[in-house]
Each structure stands twice: as structure tokens, then as C-alpha cells.
């Protein structure tokens, strides 16, 4: 089996549309790819007890999270017919409307990309030690809970 170099998942602050465009552009040389599925998590301006979320501040048990991401990556390649996969997650502050999660899966045919992308997002939500503080305009906060 080809050894896949674990890459850095955490990026400080929001994931920019330009970063996403650059990632997409890099795949034009991989001409066995027919389908990409991209999931983006965007911070919602949820209203909690009359206060609107202004930003989420993400923190993680980074060493464990990077191990989990690596396991998840190996499992995804074993489970699905993939050409490429990339995961990026923000750490630090991400404002409402900005992007905090970028999962990018590429395959020859669309079904593998779709299935893998969805599976990966669920795995991240359930099994990777990341936390978020939902910060309001007045700087009070609550700890985010995943639904």
C-alpha cells in the first residue's frame, strides 16, 4: 500500500474561499479524477437566549486529533475507491459566515466521492476531539454542542 503522508489538518482562523480554489486547482493534473465532493462547514449566526453568535473559537486536543484524522484517512482509503482526500479544520476564532471545516474528496466516479465525504464528516463530528466556544457580541459565550 502506498504510504500517504499525514498532512496538517488545523489551520488558524477561517478557511478562505481562495484556499479552497487553490486546492481545487491543484487537482487539474490528476486526470483520473471524474468527481469531487466538497463539504464546507460554515459558522452560523445562531440565536441562543436572544443573543446572536458572533464567532466560534475552536480548540482541540491537537495531538490526538491529528492521530484521529490520520486513522480516518487510512480508513477512508480502505473503505472507498478514492483518488485523493484532504481535510482542513480551523482552530482559533472563526466568525459567523466564515468557513471552519473543508473536506475534499476526489474519485473516478461520483458515488465514491459522495459516500466518502459524508462518512468523513460524520466521523469528524463524532470522533475527533475538537471543541468550540460560541461567542456572542457581548463576549459572553456558551460551549457548542454538536447535533
Amino acid at each position: 500500500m502506498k504510504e500517504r503522508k499525514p498532512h496538517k489538518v488545523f489551520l488558524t482562523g477561517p478557511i478562505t474561499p481562495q484556499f479552497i480554489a487553490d486546492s481545487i486547482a491543484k487537482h487539474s493534473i490528476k486526470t483520473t479524477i471524474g468527481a469531487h465532493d466538497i463539504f464546507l462547514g460554515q459558522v452560523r449566526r445562531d440565536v441562543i437566549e436572544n443573543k446572536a453568535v458572533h464567532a466560534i473559537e475552536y480548540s482541540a486536543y491537537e495531538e490526538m486529533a491529528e492521530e484521529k484524522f490520520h486513522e480516518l484517512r487510512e480508513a477512508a482509503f480502505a473503505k472507498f475507491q478514492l483518488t485523493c482526500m484532504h481535510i482542513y479544520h480551523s482552530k482559533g476564532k472563526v466568525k459567523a459566515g466564515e468557513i471552519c471545516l473543508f473536506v475534499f474528496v476526489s474519485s473516478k466516479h461520483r458515488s465514491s466521492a459522495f459516500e466518502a465525504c459524508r462518512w468523513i464528516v460524520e466521523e469528524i463530528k463524532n470522533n475527533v476531539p475538537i471543541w468550540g466556544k460560541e461567542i456572542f457580541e457581548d463576549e459572553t459565550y456558551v460551549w457548542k454542542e454538536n447535533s
Partner: protein
Amino acid sequence: MNSRVRLFGSLVEIVGKSELNVSGCSDTQEVKEKLASEFPQLRKCEFLISVDRKLVKNNQRLEPGNEIAFLPPFAGG
């Protein structure tokens, strides 16, 4: 034996720091009890425990140098 315990998310606020040492515990259950008696609010918190970055199912014996962590419910994505 001295064990290093790392805390994350909301648990950092309850304990007042992100890392501490506990002594005289031989398994994760004892660590949990010891910290809960010192910080009673922990009893109301939901969290998992990891040892050397692997989740502990029930209880786990500790070895010198193990890194223990208390992990509140994950909220990535």
C-alpha cells in the same frame, strides 16, 4: 505514581487550568474520583477519558508516563 492530566473545552474552566498532576492513582477511575472530589462540579459534567490519546472504554490501569486527558463531548465541524 504521578500522572499528568490534561483538560479540554469547558473542563478547563471548571478546574481552572488545562493541565495538572495527580499522584497515587493506579487507574483512570481513581484519577476521575480524585479530581471529582477536588472539583465537585466535574461530577455534573459529561466527559470521556483518554490515555495516550486513545479513548478508555471502562477503566484502565496506568503506567508511568501515561498522558491522561478529560474530553468533553466533541463539537468539531
